[in-house]
C-alpha cells in the first residue's frame, strides 16, 4: 500500500517535471520546481516508512528547509534582478 502510494507520487512528480521543461514563462518553472520538490519530499517519507529506514526523516527535514531557501532566493532574484539589496 505504501509502495503503491510512492509509485503514484513518483508518476505525479514526473508529470510535474514536464511543466519545468515546457513552462511558457520563468515563474511557471519556479512554481513547478517548488511542487516537484515537495512531491520528492513526500516520496522520501513514504519510502522511509516502507523500508523502515528512519534517518530519511531527518533528510526530509533538511531537504524541506533547503527547498524553502532555494525558492526564496530564486524569487528575490527574479524580482530585483540582483541578490544584494
Amino acid at each position, binding site marked *: 500500500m505504501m509502495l503503491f502510494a510512492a509509485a503514484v507520487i513518483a508518476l505525479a*512528480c514526473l508529470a510535474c517535471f514536464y511543466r519545468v521543461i515546457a513552462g511558457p514563462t520563468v515563474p*511557471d518553472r519556479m512554481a513547478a520546481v517548488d511542487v516537484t520538490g515537495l512531491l520528492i519530499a513526500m516520496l522520501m517519507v513514504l519510502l522511509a516508512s516502507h523500508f523502515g529506514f528512519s534517518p530519511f526523516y531527518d533528510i526530509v527535514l533538511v531537504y524541506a528547509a533547503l527547498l524553502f531557501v532555494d525558492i526564496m532566493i530564486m524569487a528575490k532574484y527574479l524580482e530585483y534582478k540582483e541578490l544584494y539589496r
Partner: protein
Amino acid sequence: MDVLQIIAYTLIMLGTGFCVIAVVGMLRFPDVYTRYHAGTKGVTAGNLLILAGVAIVEWSLLISLKLLLIAIFFFMTNPVATHAIARAAYRSRSSFPCLFIDAYREYVQRRLRYSEAEGEEDEAAATEDVSP
C-alpha cells in the same frame, strides 16, 4: 488489520489523491496565477494528510514527533514561498497578458503618487512603478 491502520492508509490515499489533483491542475490551468492556486493548496493539503498517515503507521514517539515537525514546517513555509514567487512574477512584468482585473496595480500606483506628493526620493517606491 485494525482500525488505526485503516484510518492511516485512508489518510495516505487521500493525500496521494490531493497531490495528483494538484499536479493535474499544474499541468492543465491556463496561466501563472491559477497554477500557483492549484499547486500551493493541493500540495500543502496532500503533504499534511500523507504525513499524518505515516505518523499513525509508525506510531513511535520520536518518529511521530519528527513527522509533526516536518508537517508544521511545510504548513508554514509553502504558502510563504508561493506568495514570494507570485509577488516576483507580478513585479518582474513577466505575466501581464494574462491579467484581466488588476487591483494590485492601483494600490502600487497610489503608493507611488503618495510618495511623489511627499517629495521624497524613495528608491523602493521608484522601482514599484509597474505601468507597462
